[in-house]
């Protein structure tokens, strides 16, 4: 099938060299873990343990009875020392369970999840999308009755600058990824399985090709941000646009991140719950690298593990620099969605501008927007609080990739304004 080039996009400096060759290593378990009860999109969990309880590694410590949710497991054996509020990397204040790990940890062992069917096991393992959206995977594996998944796409693009966690996963454990792909393909009945990798990771392509049989295709895509965004990826591979307001399944495609697939393979084959993830720690740190981190580790601890800051730092980002969140406090825990911790030096970070930057109508944002929006227009209206006019320019379709803000020569915080417009439009019931 002919591959398409999605509209717009940019190719920012990758900055991946620092970590793309460094093997994944375990981060030591810290003295305290803080586990927010909402590490996923959907209904927050309710703690199922009390202060003073002993917990085992893999034991459920929070859950809720809702379709769109995912249980939370203790990543260590230890003692619950507090149940209180914490700030998350995203800036929300949510309930959290604090656990003091035992001195001795067996990170190879865990309480296995049990359930009658495969979907049940995935749900019980608390698996959510590790590509960033943290959407409970089992929901995506259960498409509405009237939709059929023809193609399963594993997203190994990792188009964000700085991050290499998916890259290392594909290089070091391609068998887990491919196994996960086959499991998911079987569950949803996909006729075709594609693993998409950007052209800047030839070693990952090679490793995957070695594992993939005839049933799994490896497709190499041009290196262009946001190649890994779901809609753009589907378009690039299938030439189909996900219609406005519809699920990706409307094009017959299902997209999962490669790490999600690996976690699903672990859950199905070994009953392993999701209790740790690979985090790229990079930027101005002494020992940049990819760490396998138990969830709940505080960012400050993780930075210490990586040797601390190696120079002046202006912003610390959870996630990639294009879509991640700047942290106000480093005492926030790593959660299921934290793909990286990037410490940006003053010259590298976007200039700290507050105020009304003029739009010089250069058109770069319009040309760059992968969704064919006119970011400047939405932002202009949002800036003047003309919410109805802003809503008419379809902020709802924005995938928040940040290309527009990135390219703007006057450094307008376009995406931030578009988010406001989006919120206003949603509040008014525009869809």
């Amino acid at each position, binding site marked *: 099938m002919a591959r398409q080039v999605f509209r717009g996009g940019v190719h920012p400096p990758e900055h991946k060299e620092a970590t793309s060759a460094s093997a994944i290593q375990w981060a030591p378990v810290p003295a305290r873990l803080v586990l927010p009860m909402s590490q996923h999109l959907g209904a927050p969990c309710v703690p199922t343990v009390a202060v003073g309880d002993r917990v085992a590694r893999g034991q459920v410590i929070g859950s809720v009875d809702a379709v769109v949710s995912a249980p939370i497991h203790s990543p260590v054996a230890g003692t619950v020392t507090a149940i209180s509020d914490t700030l998350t990397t995203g*800036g929300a*204040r949510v309930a959290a369970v604090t656990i003091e790990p035992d001195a001795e940890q067996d990170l190879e062992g865990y309480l296995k999840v049990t359930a009658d069917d495969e979907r049940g096991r995935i749900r019980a393992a608390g698996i959510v999308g590790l590509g960033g959206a943290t959407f409970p995977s089992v929901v995506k594996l259960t498409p509405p009755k009237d939709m059929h998944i023809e193609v399963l796409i594993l997203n190994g693009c990792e188009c964000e600058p700085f991050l290499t966690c998916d890259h290392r996963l594909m290089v070091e454990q391609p068998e887990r990824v491919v196994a996960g792909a086959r499991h998911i393909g079987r569950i949803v009945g996909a006729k075709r399985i594609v693993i998409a990798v950007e052209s800047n990771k030839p070693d990952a392509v090679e490793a995957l090709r070695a594992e993939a049989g005839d049933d799994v295709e490896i497709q190499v895509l041009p290196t262009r941000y946001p190649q890994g965004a779901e809609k753009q990826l589907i378009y690039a591979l299938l030439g189909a646009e996900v219609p406005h307001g519809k699920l990706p399944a409307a094009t017959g495609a299902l997209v999962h991140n490669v790490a999600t697939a690996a976690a699903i393979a672990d859950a199905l084959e070994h009953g392993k719950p999701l209790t740790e993830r690979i985090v790229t720690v990079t930027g101005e740190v002494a020992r940049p690298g990819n760490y396998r981190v138990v969830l709940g580790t505080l960012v400050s601890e993780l930075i210490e593990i990586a040797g601390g800051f190696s120079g002046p730092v202006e912003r610390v980002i959870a996630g990639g620099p294009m879509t991640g*969140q700047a942290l*106000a*406090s480093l005492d926030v825990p790593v959660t299921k969605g934290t793909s990286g911790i990037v410490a940006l030096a003053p010259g590298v970070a976007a200039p700290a501008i507050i105020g009304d930057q003029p739009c010089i109508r250069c058109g770069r944002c319009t040309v760059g927007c992968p969704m064919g929006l006119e970011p400047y227009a939405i932002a202009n209206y949002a800036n003047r609080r003309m919410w109805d006019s802003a809503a008419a320019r379809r902020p709802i379709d924005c995938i928040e990739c940040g290309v527009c803000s990135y390219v703007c020569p006057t450094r307008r915080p376009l995406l*931030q304004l578009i988010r406001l417009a989006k919120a206003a439009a949603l509040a008014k019931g525009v869809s």
Partner: protein
Amino acid sequence: MDLVLIAKAVGALSLIGLITSAVLSTAAKKFHVEIDPRVGAVVGALPGSNCGACGRPSCFAVAEGIVAGEIPPTACVAGGQSVADAVAEIMGAAACEMASVICARGCGGGDKAVRVYDYAGVPSCAAANRLAGGPLACAWGCIGLGDCERACPFDAISMDARGLPVIDPVKCTGCGICVRECPRGQLTLLELVPEAAPIVMRCNARDKVKVRRANCTACCIACKKCERECPHDAIHVIDMLAVVDYEKCTGCGACVEVCPQKCIDFYGHRSGVDAVAADGVGPDVKTPAKAVEEA
């Protein structure tokens, strides 16, 4: 005098007049469409020249809009005040009704509130509030980037040097738009109070007192002095936060004077202070009691 010419002129113009008026009056009958009688009345009051100066297609459209309540009775620019009055009369007293509530700010933090980071981005409270929980340590306090000021259609709000919005109780119509636009208005940072409210609370944080004190030096510390001092039983510390009971409050100002944190403030129209209407003048201003004393 040229009688023939005159005859021709009269003939020609009356012919035209006859035809047009005859056609029109038959058409008026034939194509008659029912309309709300008030629309007719308002049309009658409007100039009817369909000048378009108001930006609307015709006087009729304006009348329909006014009757439907979509546009104010003052819409007609060409007609000016006299027409506005006439229209308002047709539409009844509802046209320019007096506000019964006005807006008050429930935060006195400003430069006294602890900030946890330097914010970079759009100067908008709503935008800042979405980043890492907002730049203030206090989750209830005013972010101070002036969304309310920009949103107020009546120019009633202006940001002061402390970075707090000051509401002009005379201009405020109680429309509530700022309450909706403030990202923390849905908490109780901005609140609609009775128009005559003489006293407002300048703290609305529901954290524990200890947390509150760490976050801001202007917070209510729940010391209950106001509650004890109030001669009218109009202010109570409920859930560790003082709340004014406007049913009972007379605006005597006893609580304002006694509050060690100075987080109770005068507000709105006050008797005794020369009908001055103001927001946030603080305890230095003469209270009615002081004014009486001095007099």
